[in-house]
């Protein structure tokens, strides 16, 4: 058995770490790129969303390299994401691929873990350690990314901070013990706390919301984070594997998490519409009132939950006076058009900010 899994942001770090502990051979496909998109488009139905094309293409890349089992998350909708793996299975069979699927779906994640455990004949303690190690790895990496995108632009001396980030990351790659990962996290947090920074109000701050795949996968969002960081802009993004996974996999967290979001999104959205529609609305309101100067919503064309959220964001933006830019990403690979729109928007927001400051003085 050679296990593989499609990419989504940093989730591969967790999976790879866990599989290493369990001593299961796995294959890591290349990060999604133009080739995955092409391979995916060949098989995907017309009108399917960008994430599906990329996930399908990524699976094909892995299978072409010799993987024979695919590990993937299922779901129960109403977002299409939950059906990705089932449709992909049919499409791949149709195209002549012979592959097994290990689906982690409602009520099935425990069963699948047990199957894996039996296959590998590892004791329970190992399994627990695998899950924990994977979890801490992705948590640490995502913390580093979050600190980088939020504070790099605010640092008075960005250079040493950037060097530190490289050091932590390389240490994290070789770290396989939990205490070490925790230590990296602490160091990073301490450094940021002590680092001389410009006051937050002097830097342009942008909030990012949207569906999970577009938020987490750089190729799907035209590498917007790199682009913004390069312009000296501080980014706040709440979407991360480590904030999302526990809330969907642990049943006791689900209820209160949703209640909380519903409260924040009220009255613009009064019901969960699947995917991350509710999150987008709740976080926009939350961030825009406290932390950021403007919001950018990104979603693939045809993403149903985000379309509902978009209508709520339009109204919310008007009522609370928040500049919001919603961009629909399709399967054409054109960064220039995208960047022009973002740039124009940011210049406008900058103008507003300068005007406000002038009024204050």
């Amino acid at each position, binding site marked *: 058995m050679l296990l593989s899994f499609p990419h989504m942001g940093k989730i591969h770090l967790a999976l790879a770490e866990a599989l290493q502990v369990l001593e299961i051979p796995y294959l890591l496909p290349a990060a999604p790129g133009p080739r995955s998109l092409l391979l995916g488009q060949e098989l995907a139905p*017309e009108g399917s969303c960008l994430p599906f094309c990329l996930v399908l293409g990524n699976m094909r890349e892995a299978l072409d390299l010799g993987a024979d089992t695919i590990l993937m998350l299922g779901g129960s909708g109403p977002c299409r994401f939950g059906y990705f793996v089932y449709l992909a299975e049919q499409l791949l069979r149709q195209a002549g691929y012979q592959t097994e699927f290990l689906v982690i779906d409602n009520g099935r994640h425990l069963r699948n873990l047990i199957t894996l455990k039996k296959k590998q004949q590892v004791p329970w303690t190992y399994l627990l350690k695998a899950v924990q190690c994977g979890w801490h790895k992705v948590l640490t990496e995502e913390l580093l990314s979050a600190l980088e995108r939020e504070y790099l632009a605010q640092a008075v001396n960005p250079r040493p901070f950037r060097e530190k980030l490289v050091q932590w990351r390389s240490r994290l790659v070789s770290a396989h013990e939990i205490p070490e990962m925790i230590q990296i996290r602490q160091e990073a947090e301490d450094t940021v706390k002590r680092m001389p920074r410009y006051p937050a109000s002097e830097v342009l701050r942008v909030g990012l919301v949207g569906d999970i795949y577009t938020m987490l996968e750089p190729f799907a969002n035209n590498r917007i984070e790199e682009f913004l960081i390069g312009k000296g802009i501080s980014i706040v993004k709440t979407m991360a594997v480590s904030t999302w996974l526990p809330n969907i996999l642990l049943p006791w967290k689900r209820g209160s998490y949703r209640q909380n979001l519903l409260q924040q999104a009220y009255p*613009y959205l009064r019901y969960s519409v699947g995917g991350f529609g509710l999150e987008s609305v709740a976080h926009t309101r939350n961030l825009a009132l406290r932390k950021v100067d403007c919001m950018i919503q990104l979603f693939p064309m045809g993403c149903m*939950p985000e379309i509902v959220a978009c*209508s709520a964001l339009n109204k919310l933006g008007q009522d609370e006076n928040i500049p919001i830019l919603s961009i629909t990403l399709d399967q054409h690979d054109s960064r220039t058009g995208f960047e022009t729109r973002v740039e124009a928007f940011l210049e406008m927001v900058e103008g507003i900010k300068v005007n406000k400051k002038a009024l204050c003085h």
Partner: protein
Amino acid sequence: MEMTIGFPRTLFYFLYYPFWYAFFTELGFKVVSSDPTNRSSLDLGMREAVNDACLPIKLYHGHVTELKDKVDILFMPRMVSIRKLDRETFCPKFLGLPDMVRNSISGLPRVIDQKVDLGRGVFPLWRLCQQVAGDLNCRGWPVWRAFQKARRMQKTFTDYLAAGIPAHQAIEAAITGRACQTPEYPPSDVRLAILGYPYLIYDSFVNVCLFEKLARMGIQTFTVEMVPSERLNGQGKNLPKNLFWNFSNRTVQAAYYYLEEEKTDGIIHMTAFGCGPDAMVDKLMELEAKKHGGVPFITLSLDEHTGEAGVMTRIEAFVDMLRLRRERHEDIISRQG
């Protein structure tokens, strides 16, 4: 004065209007629905709705805009689920429909947006009716009476639909109580299943009067609603997992039914451009049609610009191919036999 309740003439109108019409009328309200979809509903909808929304959602915005100044109360239920099947629900845009409309259209009258969640609890439909009636300050025995009448009317209506009567006629017949005559079909040589969501299939503005035209071409048509409901629910066992959306499941199941029964010569799938679930539905239907010996299958994608000529050309070509194929087939049989 009698209070009026507005019911936009699109989306779930085509399946559930008679029920709510009977219910509200019996409670002493006047039910008003918007005009049948026309150019102005489309224009209004395109102006008000989010630009990424699909055609049906835009039309719904258009119908609401048309109705909002004419009625005291707007009935826009939040459709969550209507049967107990896994965790079946509706498309996210249906789940957020009342919110979308509120966010996009200003100057709305009072809105009743009770959650229609019939997949859970005991006697969910009766409880829903109680809640809706409660919003209108109606309680007790009259509500029960209205509920019973509504159920009877809905039953009559679904029977008409199952008999193949076009939805607008069936609705008319059910609410007026007049007998409904099965329309005379000219002799037909081709049978086609026209599958898709009720708001596309039964809205003759959206589908450019497809059914009338097909009947004139000598084609007998079958719809999702014409599948006996007990047979419909039994279909799709070989799906890896049920889809999450009610209308989508019904469409896929109907396709499976017609393929299994070999009742039709071909399948036309009507879909709205940008419909999320349909990207998957369409592929599943296509795969299944292939499995049944390559039953001819065509997808018609409808959007704001749907021109009659374009749709008809594609349909005519499809039907011509079916006839050609049959002639050749008969040729082979007669030569060999």
